[in-house]
């Protein structure tokens, strides 16, 4: 491939970590002068972090007729930029925005698209892509038979690596976009206030049926708190109404890849494993030593969770001082 375009995203005007992961993934494929970051925003941005992770070219689009996000309008903007720059590979984060936007861009560019990339390598100038299928029970390798290729990368799989550069070339591009292109408009973003979301957390502590009732969930919350992580839940716990659906990890909930996933009283049904088995480290605590969760765990403690979790909290506090 010759030229790569990276779709960058902001959260509270700070570049998302998943965007930095795209920079590293691109730097592994080609030389820096052939990699272009694209940010679409009316805000003033600070690009220090982009330099730190080795992005040499930044394209800024700010002549937007509306403040709202719109996947239709933004897909047209990416299309225009990619065509002007003769891009042949586009990388998006596999989050809510990327999964919705990237396929739209692929159609406009007459490109081929593949989602949920967990491996990316160049073999004889050919891009070979790995992706989990069937709830992670199998992995496929594939190639895309189109000149232009669009991919989303699963967050937290491609680790962002620091790669300092001195200067970043910034250029503001004007795009032709009108209010009518905003076919759908985001009116409002409602954040789950004061709560770290499982899809954005480095550490997740989830409870399952073994927690026995919502009144015992404080154990999960306390363990999450000492670890500095988010609270998750299994489907059983959500279906029972003990926890909100936003916390559910698994096939009908969220797919996560944190650095540490702690499963407390979760047996590990395949639907749950589909949502968390790509975590870097997994700690399982369960009374049944035959529970399937132990087959994917790096660390496991067999026994009564109501005895184990308080001791675990104490010992972690001691280490953290």
């Amino acid at each position, binding site marked *: 491939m010759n030229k790569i375009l990276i779709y960058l995203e902001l959260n509270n005007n700070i570049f998302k970590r998943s965007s930095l992961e795209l920079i590293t993934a691109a730097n592994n494929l080609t030389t820096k002068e052939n990699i272009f970051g694209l940010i679409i925003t009316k805000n003033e941005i600070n690009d220090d972090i982009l330099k730190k992770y080795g992005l040499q070219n930044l394209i800024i689009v700010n002549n937007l007729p509306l403040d709202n*996000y719109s*996947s*239709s309008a933004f*897909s047209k903007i990416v299309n225009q930029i990619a065509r002007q720059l003769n891009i042949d590979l586009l990388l998006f984060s596999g*989050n*809510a*925005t990327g*999964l*919705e*936007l990237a*396929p*739209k861009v692929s*159609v406009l560019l007459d490109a081929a*698209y*593949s*989602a949920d990339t967990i491996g990316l390598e160049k073999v004889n100038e050919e891009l070979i892509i790995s992706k*989990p*299928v069937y*709830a*992670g029970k*199998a*992995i*496929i*390798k*594939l190639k*895309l*038979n*189109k000149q232009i290729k669009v991919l989303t990368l699963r967050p937290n799989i491609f680790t962002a690596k620091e790669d300092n550069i001195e200067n970043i070339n910034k250029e503001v591009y004007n795009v032709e976009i009108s209010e009518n292109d905003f076919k*759908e*408009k*985001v*009116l409002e*973003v*409602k*954040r789950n206030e004061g709560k770290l*979301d499982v899809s*954005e957390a480095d*550490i997740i502590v989830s409870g399952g049926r073994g927690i026995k009732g919502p009144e015992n969930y404080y154990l999960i919350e306390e363990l999450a708190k000492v670890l500095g992580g988010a609270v998750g839940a299994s489907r059983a716990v959500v279906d029972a109404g003990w926890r909100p*659906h*936003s916390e559910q990890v698994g096939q*009908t909930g969220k*797919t996560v890849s944190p650095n*540490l996933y702690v499963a407390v009283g979760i047996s590990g*049904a*395949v*639907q749950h494993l589909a949502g968390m088995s790509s975590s*870097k*480290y997994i700690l399982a605590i369960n009374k049944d030593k035959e529970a399937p969760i132990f*087959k*994917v*765990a*790096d*660390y*496991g*403690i*067999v026994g*009564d969770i109501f005895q*184990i979790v308080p001791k675990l909290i104490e*010992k*972690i506090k001691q280490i953290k001082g």
Partner: protein
Amino acid sequence: MKILVCISKVPDTTTKINVGEDKKSIDSKGVKFILNPYDEFAIEEGLRIKEQKGGEVTVLTVGDESNQDILRTALAMGADNAVLVKASYDFDSFQVANNIANYAKKYNPDLILLGRQSIDFDSFQVPSLLATLLDFPSVSVVSKLTIDSNKIIAERDIEGGKEIVETSLPCIISTQKGINEPRYPKLPDIMKAKKKNIEEFPFENTNKYVEILSLQLPDKKRVGKIVGDSDNEIQEIVNLLHNEAKII
């Protein structure tokens, strides 16, 4: 209102996956196939909108003859018409979207509903591909939908919250768990659905964009350190989290 609901057939999540002889696909022997769970929400949402506002619900799937059963499930739930875009060979997601678009151009729906993802390849892509092919607006992963004449307000799940999105008909919505509780078809309706006509629509066989090179089972499990619940053993795990995983 004319509502088109697009559904697909997938292996049951609990099915054991074995690699097929071609080493590129699964061995479908003994695999139980089901209606994609997210598509049940799409069918239910279509039926509820029809019950409120009138109109008709047409269900469509792309695949071979064996897909008749999921179409009949949708008919038993209350869909008015069923369409099989008949393809007896492998196809990729772009071809699925392209064939749905072909049918939609003829049918002219006001609303197209799909599940947020099919649980075989988990790509979330057909709603967006279809939207761009038809030049329709779309909102993905919707857990609440309100339609007021032409105006649509959709709540969409994102990381750490929800987006409230405004759009207008005709449009495409992909459904998320929580949007409704799908109904179970009743026995008399299941019997009636068996006799209903299923329309066939020709499949346009364009080039495949995605070429699968291999399908493998994931690397064998992690070698886990599993201990009992004594104080020392719990301490050992905490030490490993500290020194080996370097997490605390």
